[in-house]
């Protein structure tokens, strides 16, 4: 069964790009969120297998959203979409419970490698 993905990013172009990466590779994109608040709501509603999470977003940051998602579901798999220069934010997100991260600008194969690994065990 295709793994279900929730994409969180405040930039539409980023969401579209990530969506294209997943759609062509046997994942099912079940939802999108444009900020941290929406992300937490959509996560609770959709219970996806994987959430990709931008860090800097309006209303609620990706780190805070990750923290809340992990609190609600400790087994949630959240992969941060970060940019170079956001290292300290990524570490904060990891402390909040993020499973892994990808660094923008990314190539589709890099995204898929990280995601498959992170879903691949335990």
């Amino acid at each position, binding site marked *: 069964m295709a793994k279900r993905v929730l994409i969180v990013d405040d930039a539409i172009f980023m969401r579209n790009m990530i969506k294209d990466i997943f759609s062509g590779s046997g994942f099912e994109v079940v939802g999108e969120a444009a900020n941290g*608040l929406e992300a937490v709501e959509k996560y609770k509603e959709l219970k996806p297998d994987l959430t990709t999470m931008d860090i800097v977003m309006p209303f609620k940051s990706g780190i805070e959203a990750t923290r*809340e998602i992990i609190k609600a579901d*400790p087994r949630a798999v959240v992969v941060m979409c970060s940019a*170079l220069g956001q290292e300290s934010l990524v570490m904060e997100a990891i402390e909040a419970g993020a499973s892994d991260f990808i660094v923008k600008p990314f190539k589709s194969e890099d995204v898929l490698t990280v995601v498959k*690994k992170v879903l691949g065990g335990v």
Partner: protein
Amino acid sequence: MALDFQRYIGLFVSEAGDHLTALGRDLVALEQAVRAGGAEAQLRPLIDSIFRHAHSVKGMSASMELPAIAALAHKAEDLVDVFRGDAGRVEPACIDLLLTTGDALADMVQASGRNERPPADADLMKRLVDMARRLKAGLPLVQGPPTEPPPGPGRGAAPPAAAPPAEPAAEAPPAPPPAAAPAEPEPAAGPVQRLRLEVEIAPACPVPAVRAFLVVKKLSALGANLASAPAVEELKAGRLPDGRITVWMETAEPVERLKRALGQISDLGRVEIEVEAALAEPVAHAAAAHGAGSAAEPSRTVRVRTEILDGFVDAVGELLLATARIREVGRALPDQYRPPLDEGVDRLHAIVKDLHDKVMAVRMTPLATVTERLPRAARDVARKLGRQVEVEIQGSEIELDRAILEELADPLTHVLRNAVDHGIEAPHLRLLAGKPAAGRITVTARRDRDRVVVELSDDGQGMDTARLREAAVTRGTLSADQAAALTDREALLLACLPGLSTAEKVTDVSGRGVGLDAVKRTVEAVGGVLEIESAPGVGTRIVLRLPLTVAVQPVLLVGVGTEVLGLPISKVHGAAHVVYSTLDRSRGEPILPYDGELVPVYDLATLLGFTATGRDERAVVVAEVSDGRIGLAVDALLGQQEAVLKPLGTPLGAVSGLSAVTVMGNGRPVFILDVQRLLAA
């Protein structure tokens, strides 16, 4: 549940300000790269970085409920986004507009810190929207404000200026933990072992320290982390020198399970797990797993208000003085009481010194905080004057005391502007001289033992020593003979004389002759030295040699009449007791035979305008000045002391010959002399 945004406003102003400074720096770098015909691969990282900074400012200000800032940043981001699609679209007009926007954002951010909420400049917003639209449509860019109405909603992303959704989900009861049973059974926990795990991070990983941090974090969920090398603090600071992380941990989990957990992390190379010891007693695993390796837990980084740091330095300085005072009081005690007291004071002194070193280390700040504004400053001046200039900065990671950096910011900017204004020629003149049209200014910093050397060199027209000599003679500073006797190196320093400018016309950039003079004074006030090298047609190099820290310096205290004054030990060569009237004289002035040479002796009281005491048994302090040694006759040598130097405010700062003030243990202020300037006065 309303958030108290006021609590975060200081942090917001500081962080958003950092982003905007970086935004300006990257824009200038982008402009240079575009002009140099940079390939897409070179432009791309800059454009991404610019986008990110705009994006961050947008996100931060939206979170702070500052919709006007967020909206303007959003429009800037939209424009940059066009370049992300096609770096070939970047044009100077776009960069101008984005720089203006960055400045406007910086002003708004600053205003928010004063609890003001200025609206975004509607015209600026419109120009950004219009430019983005024209670029996207492949239309030529127009100068001036657009005449057409702004387009309808563009990419559709609602700007964060929109009211935030009503009460956030935070009030909703948290979802219960998933009722579903774990997907797979937990492997049976075995005996507790102490393991050593060595994990290589793939060389291609762009952020190896973050990867390593993820490794430590993953492992800490599976046992008790005892330690890691590098330590977590190092990783948080982005340091992973060997490209590998070693973790020591105690766990009851089977090695296979750990391997599997690490297998889920991307970008890892070889993983080696070694059992160091089997432990008889199981560790308190559950508690340890939640406490996540308290031993390896880092001290978190904090931002500290600079006034607090300054307060520390002052307090430590007072401690040093108080220690000196106790030592002095102890000297009056009978002999049998002195050894234990001295021992205690020695120990106290050592502790305070150590504390002082630590406080000073905290104040060390990378030079980048000053140099990162230079490319922007150079660009602005160059555009105003019709020059082209590229600025390269090396060694900006070198650290200096914050106090020195603060003093240095304006002088460095000034020297840079001078270089653009007087150094770099107009493009057509450069081409005629066989140089590239764009001038090149290089700022390099390096450590040289206990000093930092900052050099600013340009490939411009150089300085004309003949004209400097001429100007000094015209102004009456030097006689024609004196001017002719100067070496070229000395003649170049004439540029530092107050009011001496050879610039043909005074611009608002430089040329008023207050520039280099002020620079030299500032550099010397923090204990540094300024040197100039220049070759006509080839360029100029200004060298600043700076101490690492400034606040505490050893001084020699001297008495003149009833006054006590300090001389920086670094300038003092030695001292001798003399009978003043018996000193040899040369052309009526006393001279002191010292160390095989004859040193001219000046009466300090006379130099300072005090009434001479007329004492005959006196001391002479031999001090170094730029052209050799001189003697200063004083009434008494009062000993050496570590002094916390505080800069002089107005109007005392303008008094030539005084460089700083320090406060003694008994509360008495003592002025520190600047011998060089004292003689020149």
